[in-house]
């Protein structure tokens, strides 16, 4: 009996594909999102917020 891929998983894969094909979301961030997905933490707005802080370097670095 083959492994059933859930629709959630398919949507996540499609999302990652879209993220990779767009030039707005940094590639490093996508890897971090994949990690969050593996940890089942994508529903954590705080965790996503922390990832966003990595976009463009830290605030301190920009200061």
């Amino acid at each position, binding site marked *: 009996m083959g492994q059933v891929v859930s*629709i959630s998983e398919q949507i996540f894969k499609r999302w990652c594909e879209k993220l990779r094909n767009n030039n707005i979301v940094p590639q490093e961030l996508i890897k971090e999102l994949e990690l969050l997905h593996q940890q089942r933490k994508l529903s954590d707005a705080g965790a996503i917020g922390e990832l966003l802080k990595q976009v463009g370097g830290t605030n301190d670095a920009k200061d």
Partner: protein
Amino acid sequence: MMLKIDRIEIEGFRGITRACTLPLNGKSLLLFGENGTGKSSFVDALERLFTGKVSTLEGRMGVSTERHGPNIRISGSPKISVRFSEDSEFTLESNTELLPLTVKSYLAGAQEPLYILRRRQILDFIESKPQDRYELLQPFLPLTEVEETETALRRASQKADNEATEAERALSASSRELAQAVGIGEYQIPMGEQQVCTALSVRLQAIGIVALRSLSNLGDAISALDTRVAKVGDTERLITLHSARSLLSELQSSLSVLDFTSFRTALHTLQSQEVTVAKTFFEDVLQRGLEWIQTDWQGQCPLCETPWDKKPRDREALVARIHARLDEMKEVVKSRQDTDRKGRELLDSLREVQNSCRPLRTKLETLGEVDGLKLLDAVAESLRNLCTFLEQRLDQITTNGLDAAITSWHTASYATRLQELIARVKTAAGRLPSPEEIKPLVELRLLLGRIDELWRRQKVAFNQRNLARQRSEVASTMLRLAEEARKEEVQELFDRLSKDIDDLYKKVTGRETDSEKSQNQGLTKLRLEVRPEVRGSVIYQADFYERKDVVPNAYGSDAQLDMIGLCTFLALRRWYKNQHPVFDLLILDDVLTSIDAQHAVRTAELILKEFGNYQIILTTHDRIWYEYLRDIQARCRVKGQFLNKVIHKWTLEEGPDIREPEEERGHIDRLLVDGTAPQIATEAGRLLEHVLQEMRYSLRLSVQAKRGELYEIGEIWPAFYSAMRKSYPGFYEKCGETLDALDIRWTIRNWVGAHFNIWASRISREEVLEFGHTVSELFDRMFCKDCRRFVEPSMTPAGQLSCRCGHLIYPVPGKEPLKPLSREEIVKMTRGAFRDARLNTDLYFEWKRAEMGREHN
């Protein structure tokens, strides 16, 4: 090996009162029962067991599974259990953790009631609003995790948006502050570098510093200003110099006005008067003597104590003389007072000058003016000496002494030396700009420093704004793409589902094999679509002839919409099985009722063919349809996969009676040996009722309508007996005696078995036994043990009764028995006219008449 349900046991739930067992042995179930006989109770019980509730009992005011699930006649808890092919049992009390893995997987799939379709649910989906439809589809689409992710992304995006707005505000404030500092009213955000440079350049150029080309050169301008200010050295020193110069000038002025001469002259005059007139001493003596003479010493001289001879003339002469002398002293006294005043004035002036030396000394110390300090100290020392000298009693100050002090003062040439010091300080101060000149420089220097800071702050705010914007854009992009991915994925799923729905619909409408032209007639291209502009919304679309993208319920009949709903459910069920391959239960509770015969046949065939690998529970309240479904089972070659059950009757006390005919027959045999008369009468009566119910359908007996169609023997027997005698002479020829006997004895069932009355006491046991034997004989004549069917009128020839397999045939007298035709044979014989029809004699006759008419023509 797929897990199947082997047995279902229910007791005390809904309409099922006593323990009732469905021995499926892994087979599917076709269950027939009139309305109100408890068919749906089996479905409800399974739903309760697998999902914990009965969806039709939930969500309605005052109704709940907990309160209305249990049978009203049973006080204890309901009992529902399922035994699986793996010999595992699952009951309401089971601990699922202890069950085998396959059973757990099965139960996981069964948790959502996505495998049960009830009549009332079919139209719900079609008629529902798009958002409600999405809700209805949600159990099929386990998107909770995806939706939670989208919610998290939405929150993160909102937060990033807020931060971007805040950063925008901070940048705006920073630019405004910068513009205010530079003195510009109209500016852009962020304020442009060139605008700042231009404004600052005007002020720099005004003091001879080169214009700013860029704010990166701001450091150069600040350095230039610093250099300019550095020339001043210490502005404190400049101020000190000016202050010292001012104090020195004041000191010089004070010294120049010191009036030694006036005091010296007065002193000299005084001392000359004192020498020429008298000693000052006598002034007091005379004054005092006068007082003595006039008051205390009136009889004698106060000095020599010589009596005045008591001559007033002598005393008066002395007084006159003293007055005269005092007048003479008056000038000296006045001169003394004048000299004393001038001495004090000089002393005050000296002390004042002395005091003014102290701040001056501090300034000179600050300036490091050593020579000046020496001079000032000398001045102060001289002043102190002078003061000390002048502080003596006036009569102790001699002119010579005063002259010596004055000479010493003048000899010191303080005025000249002070003048030199002043010139020196002035020269030093003159080498520096004045405080008025330095002020703009310092202000501009401070401004440049502030601009540097504000420009840096604006830059930081600008970067942070850009960063916040970037994060906001990233967050919103992530969200947008997540929504896109979900919608696309769901739409792709819907496309697959839609194709499946459309294929199923084509099959049930028979359009699958039609020509291309007719395939485009009516409702076609059924599809589910995600509404991209609305979250969680699904629309149902179809084409209707030349009209594209219409909602099916705008043009479809109720029956068509029923079929669309059913096809949708079946497509979803098939998709759901892909998610839960172990779980294969499919329950259709009386869902084919409103569909016309032609479509219902196709639908039934489709279900049995396309879902042949499912364990199906199919209920119907339509007896003809039940029979026909049994035919379809054979036609679809799944007969062996089905257990066909009939609920003969239902009572509140006993619940549904689902015994097989053979069971009833066997039970009578046992009772005929050792049963009581009422037991025999009751059971024989039940079996007779069962036979008559079957015959009522197959012979299409004309019976007066009765609510719930729960007819008793007396209501069917006359019509049955009459029909058998008149229309089926072959049967009557062979079984006439049985029929005639029953025509007399059927009332025994009522007299003995059902209702107590006086007649019952007159009925002998022999008569009851005879009744039982006769019913059994009739059953044996009418029920085929091979095909497990009662005899029915053959389609052709008319008047013949036979079972389906042809084992029991009662031919028309004088005619050869004709084995009943199979459906395929009938369809072939009627050249396809009966392909999807429910077959019966009337229909056949109708066709036959039409055929004969055609042949005659």
